[in-house]
């Protein structure tokens, strides 16, 4: 059974984003939402741990939350942009949802 991980705080306040990534299972995925979408910014050193998920197709970002904050258009390179309906589909796809704190 797999888990959908969500990040809803800015990763720059997460000392240990790596510690969350380290416990993601093979089929788990990660959704960035709310302040978590700053994790989609490519050039921030603090986001390097998230690079591991890039191109794996396992990283999503909520489109509205991204656009609301003026995140540059380069961001989508690192994550698949989805709507709230897409969020619902991800929750259906995975048995569990784990909100990173």
């Amino acid at each position, binding site marked *: 059974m797999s*888990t959908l991980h969500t990040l809803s705080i800015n990763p720059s306040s997460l000392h*240990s984003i790596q*510690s969350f990534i*380290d*416990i993601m*299972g093979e089929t788990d995925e990660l959704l960035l939402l709310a302040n978590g979408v700053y994790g989609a910014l490519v050039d921030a050193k603090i986001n390097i741990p998230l690079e591991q998920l890039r191109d794996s197709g396992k990283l999503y970002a909520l489109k509205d939350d991204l656009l609301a904050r003026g995140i540059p258009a380069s961001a989508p390179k690192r994550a698949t942009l989805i709507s709230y309906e897409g969020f619902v589909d991800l929750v259906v796809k995975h048995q*569990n949802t784990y909100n990173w*704190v």
Partner: protein
Amino acid sequence: MQKKLLFISHKTPYGSFAAKETLDAALASAAFGQDISLLFKGDGVYQLLPQQNSSLLKRKSIGAILGALELYEVNKVFICEQSLLSRGLENIKPLIKVHVLNNLSLQVLFSEQDHILSF
């Protein structure tokens, strides 16, 4: 119907009331006969430091609530090894009996649950 529920406690004992309210929820679900596991992760590991004295903050002791876990037969109590290591707490003697889990064991724990409740 019994479900497998994992409660994850991420917060310091006295910064907010999150630590207390997480344990309250875990104890309630144990009382309701659910198959529960409890994991201390991140800053939640500070809850297990011995010799706390919450009366200095005029607060209830987290230790007292932790002590109730055994009464409710909550035996699957875990702590994240990496969270201990990064906080330099690998040598503490925890307030209650906990099983230290490495990353791989945590992945297994997650994959076995019906629901994860994250506080």
